[in-house]
């Protein structure tokens, strides 16, 4: 005999099991129609495999699982699918659900099926699939797909298989009847389950108010190869709760938020075991179950084997319900069952009991009084909560406090409500609070998701903005680079790019000067500091070093820049000015020196030395000027000198030549050696010729479009006319005097007249041209 542990709390409500145990198990008659909800289990509703009008055979699958956590549904009898529509289904809320309706044909014609001879020869997965295809879900309470609980992954090591035959709720005797009548089926089912999950212990828990059932099971278990132990536990509600039964039989508690499988325990209901047996050994899917029909409104309470989908109204009629006295129709037990507000609701795979209660049996709750904190609820809570505190919190909507008092651990067994002296509907308060908390959590999750989405959007917008800005920037940069490139190209063609480097050079010069000044200052400061004995010498030294480095740097930069961009050669004018300045300085200094020497001032030596320096500078300046003149003169003359200058030069040359000729003549007349003079004259005449030629060339090079200067032409014409007049006068004079030169003069006059004519003509042309130009 195994040891039995205990759990906190629990109640002993009147059992009321006797009523339904008076008669043997019977088979309910075939109803006129079967209503089969697609959801009779935990998980997703099944998907119909048939259509309206289809003929179905008994045991034929009419709906298949939708996803993993879902269950097959089979036709409980042969017949025709008459509808697939929404009907009221067994649910605490009284809601409607999608159902397949079958009109039985009364033939009870089975689909072809056969059991497995030796299930031990099957692979685990095959066996599990077999159970899955039999549409078996937990028949004790919630209706969890059985195959999933029995086909665990390899990381779940199961040491204990607990078979729940406790049936702790009052009134219900369905499992009791099953255990008495079909103990072998249950043991057979346990063998299959044990083969699948390989537990080290198999325990069947039965309350001590079912001695016959315990006896039957013990007898049946003796024939099994397995070591199956029947453990009789004291009658106490809710011993049949999964967690409570685990505690009772093993002393272990399922940790909060975990499953029994996590601690190596699997709990299965006895009915489920029998269903597995039928499925594996006989190939029969789950199409019927044993249901208790009880309650004071029934004339013949008892247990019946009913087809899944049988409307309750048919069962009530079968059990002789007194509709006058029927006040409350409960599916399940009086503690955790729910009321049905429509007798057309069908029996489903989890329906273990139907109570047709009279008003006297389940009187309406008395009005709730104030909670006096009597603490009875705390004494009976099987989970170890403080129900009255939870009640205060639920009433005051202090859900955070309710949560911290483990409201979510409440199994809603109703023990607290049962004992409450003030008739407070405590479980309703907890359901309300739980619903509110779930809703809050749902809202919070939604809000959290919304927040995450919003932040992601903000980030995306920010990123896009940044990307746009970057693109814009990149575009602007390329554009500006192109601009500078263009700029760099164009001045290279037209103007020498000397402006920029020059400015830079200037800047560098300034910088170097500033650096030098700073360095000097710092040096001074250091010396001052050294003499004053100030502490922060190191700092000053550092500053000086920095300044030195800077000065050197700037100097270097300047030199580099100078190397790269040599200063443009000074213009002639500049050189001239420099030379003149140097000379002036020399003169001044000479004067000063003389002055000093006469006065005997001691600074005379200095002055002398500086005078020498200045003289050297002046010489250098003069030299540079001469060099520059030599370098630039010929091209400059050709380019820059205007025609006027050329004219002047030519006339000067001519004058010089004349003078030289005169001197030469005088010398020849005086009979002196005139060879050198003759040479000079030749030279000068040559120069004069060159000048004259240059002048002519320049005049010829003058662009024609410029047009002749009107003034010049006018004066030329006037001069020509005056010359003609003078020549005419001279000619007349000469003719009168009869001189020989008169013919020459006449010829000259003729020439002058042609010239004057030419000049007049040119003037007229120019005038015309100017006019047209003005008009244009």
């Amino acid at each position, binding site marked *: 005999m195994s040891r039995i542990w205990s*759990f906190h709390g629990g*109640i002993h*409500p*009147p059992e009321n099991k006797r009523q339904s145990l008076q008669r043997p198990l019977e088979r309910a008659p075939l109803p006129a129609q079967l209503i089969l909800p697609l959801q009779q289990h935990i998980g997703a509703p099944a998907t119909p495999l048939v259509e309206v009008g289809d003929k179905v055979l008994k045991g034929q699958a009419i709906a298949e699982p939708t996803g993993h956590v879902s269950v097959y549904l089979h036709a409980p009898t042969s017949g025709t699918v008459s509808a697939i529509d929404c009907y009221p289904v067994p649910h*605490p809320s009284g809601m409607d659900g999608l159902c397949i309706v079958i009109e039985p044909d009364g033939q009870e014609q089975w689909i072809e099926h056969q059991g497995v001879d030796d299930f031990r020869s099957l692979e685990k997965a095959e066996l599990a699939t077999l159970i899955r295809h039999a549409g078996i879900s937990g028949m004790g309470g919630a209706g969890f797909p059985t195959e999933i609980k029995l086909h665990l992954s390899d990381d779940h090591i199961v040491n204990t298989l607990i078979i729940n035959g406790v049936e702790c709720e*009052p009134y219900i005797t369905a499992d009791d009847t099953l255990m008495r009548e079909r103990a072998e089926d249950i043991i057979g089912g346990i063998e299959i389950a044990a083969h699948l999950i390989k537990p080290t212990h198999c325990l069947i828990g039965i309350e001590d108010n079912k001695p016959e059932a315990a006896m039957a099971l013990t007898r049946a278990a003796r024939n099994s190869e397995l070591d199956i132990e029947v453990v009789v536990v004291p009658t106490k509600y809710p011993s049949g709760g999964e967690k409570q039964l685990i*505690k009772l039989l093993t002393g272990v508690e399922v*940790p*909060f938020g*975990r499953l029994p499988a996590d601690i190596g325990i699997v709990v299965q209901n006895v009915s489920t075991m029998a269903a597995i047996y039928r499925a594996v050994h006989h190939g029969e899917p789950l199409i019927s179950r044993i249901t208790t029909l009880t309650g004071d409104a029934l004339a013949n309470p008892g247990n019946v084997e009913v087809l899944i989908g049988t409307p309750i109204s048919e069962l009530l009629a079968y059990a002789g319900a007194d*509709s006058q006295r*029927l*006040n*409350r*129709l*409960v599916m399940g037990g*009086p*503690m*955790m069952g*729910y*009321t*049905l*507000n*429509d*007798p057309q609701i069908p029996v489903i795979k989890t329906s273990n009991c139907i109570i047709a*209660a009279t008003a006297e049996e*389940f*009187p*309406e709750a*008395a*009005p709730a*009084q*104030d909670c*006096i*904190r*009597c*603490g*009875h609820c*705390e*004494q009976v809570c099987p*989970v*170890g*909560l*403080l129900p009255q505190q939870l009640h205060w919190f639920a009433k005051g909507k202090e859900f955070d*406090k309710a*949560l*911290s008092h*483990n409201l979510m*651990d409440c199994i*809603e067994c*109703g023990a607290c*409500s*049962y*004992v*409450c*002296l*003030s*008739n407070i509907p405590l*479980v*309703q308060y907890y359901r309300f609070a739980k619903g509110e908390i779930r809703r809050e959590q749902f809202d919070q999750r939604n809000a959290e998701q919304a927040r995450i989405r919003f932040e992601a959007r903000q980030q995306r917008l920010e990123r896009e903005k940044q990307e746009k800005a970057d693109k814009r920037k990149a575009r602007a940069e390329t554009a500006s680079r192109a601009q500078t490139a263009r700029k760099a190209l164009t001045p290279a063609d037209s103007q020498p790019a000397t402006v920029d480097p020059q400015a830079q050079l200037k800047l560098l010069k300034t910088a170097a000067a500033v650096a030098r000044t700073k360095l000097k200052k710092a040096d001074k400061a250091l010396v001052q500091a050294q003499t004053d004995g100030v502490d922060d010498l190191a700092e000053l030294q550092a500053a000086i070093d920095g300044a030195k480095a800077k000065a050197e740097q700037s100097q270097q930069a300047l030199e580099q820049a100078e190397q790269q961009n040599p200063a443009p050669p000074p213009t002639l004018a500049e050189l001239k000015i420099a030379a003149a300045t140097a000379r002036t300085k020399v003169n001044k200094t000479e004067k000063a020196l003389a002055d000093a020497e006469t006065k005997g001032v001691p600074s005379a030596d200095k002055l002398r030395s500086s005078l020498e320096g200045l003289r050297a500078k002046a010489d250098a300046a003069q030299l540079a000027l001469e060099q520059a003149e030599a370098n630039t003169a010929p091209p400059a003359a050709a380019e820059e000198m205007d025609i006027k200058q050329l004219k002047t030069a030519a006339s000067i040359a001519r004058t010089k030549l004349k003078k030289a000729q005169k001197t030469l003549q005088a010398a020849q007349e005086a009979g002196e050696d005139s060879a050198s003079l003759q040479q000079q004259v030749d030279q000068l005449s040559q120069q004069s010729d060159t000048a004259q030629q240059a002048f002519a060339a320049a005049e010829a090079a003058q662009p024609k479009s410029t047009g002749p200067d009107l003034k010049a032409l006018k004066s030329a014409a006037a001069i020509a006319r005056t010359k003609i007049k003078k020549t005419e006068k001279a000619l007349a004079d000469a003719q009168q005097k009869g001189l020989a030169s008169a013919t020459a003069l006449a010829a000259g006059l003729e020439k002058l007249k042609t010239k004057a004519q030419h000049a007049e003509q040119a003037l007229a042309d120019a005038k015309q041209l100017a006019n047209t130009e003005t008009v244009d």
Partner: protein
Amino acid sequence: MALLHISSPHAHKAGHAGNLMRQVIIAALPGLAALCYYFGWGPLINVLLASVLALLFEAAVIKLRRRPIGFYLGDYSAILTALLLALALPPYIPWWTTTIGIFFAIVIAKQLYGGLGQNPFNPAMIAYALLLISFPVEMTRWSAPFTLIDGTSGAALPSFGDALAIIFGQAQLPDAVTMATPLEVFKHKGAVTTEELWSQSALLNGLEPWQGISLAYLAGGIYLLIRKVYTWHIPGAMLFSLFMISGFFYGSDPSNYAPPLFHLTLGATMLGAFFIATDPVTAATSNKGKLIYGASIGILVYLIRNWGNYPDAIAFAILLMNLTAPFLDYYTRPRTYGHKQAQRGIGRK
């Protein structure tokens, strides 16, 4: 066939908050009978007067609050409060004292907080403390039990008519029948040793009336325990701690301290342990909390009796622990199934 649509559970244990109160009232009757036996009609008149007043005040406030009067008066809580206060008062206390006490208990200590279940302090003890502080003369003028008047029968006690006259101020309690309570005698023993006091005081040699009354309360308490009106935790812890602490001091200095049985059987110890400290509204909730709550009351009772200003200390000790009950509730929660340890404190873990 109109079917009810109601959520579970559908079964309900036949119970009523009024039943619980009634049980407590019934359990207190032996004590009342004992009081009347030893002190005459006074206590009964007090109880009746207090009950009527309590119902009147309660009805008036419920009317003001516009609630169904019958429904609320039916919970017997007002009568229980009146009974407990009247049992604690001196047998022939003037009517107006009782009236003030009941008014304070029902109107201020209970209804102004929101009525039954909402009051942080035990209403009867609040009223008792108020009266003790406000009217010390009336509150300490205890009459003598008949055993100490003529020693044989109740003939020396005031008749019913006299008792009425005394309580309603028409007559004076004869000086011959007034005397100090044993706790007072012990409190004011001064430098006298316990042994000397015992040999001197006739009172201390005639403790049987008080012990008889305590026994009656104990019997009522055991009845309530059997009926599972409350658990053993509070009275058990309170009596045990009082026994232990008085035993410790008595054992260490017998000539200066009273023996444990003296503390357990005299004064309002038994009344407090089984009828007042167990008031569920103002006590701690969890079993562990109840143990701490009860034990602390026992210790406080002893401390105040020995070193406080008042000879008895049940009211003050219980009121002090009423203050701590919510705090105890937060720190003595039971461990919930599947949780490694109990949650403690107010914050969530």
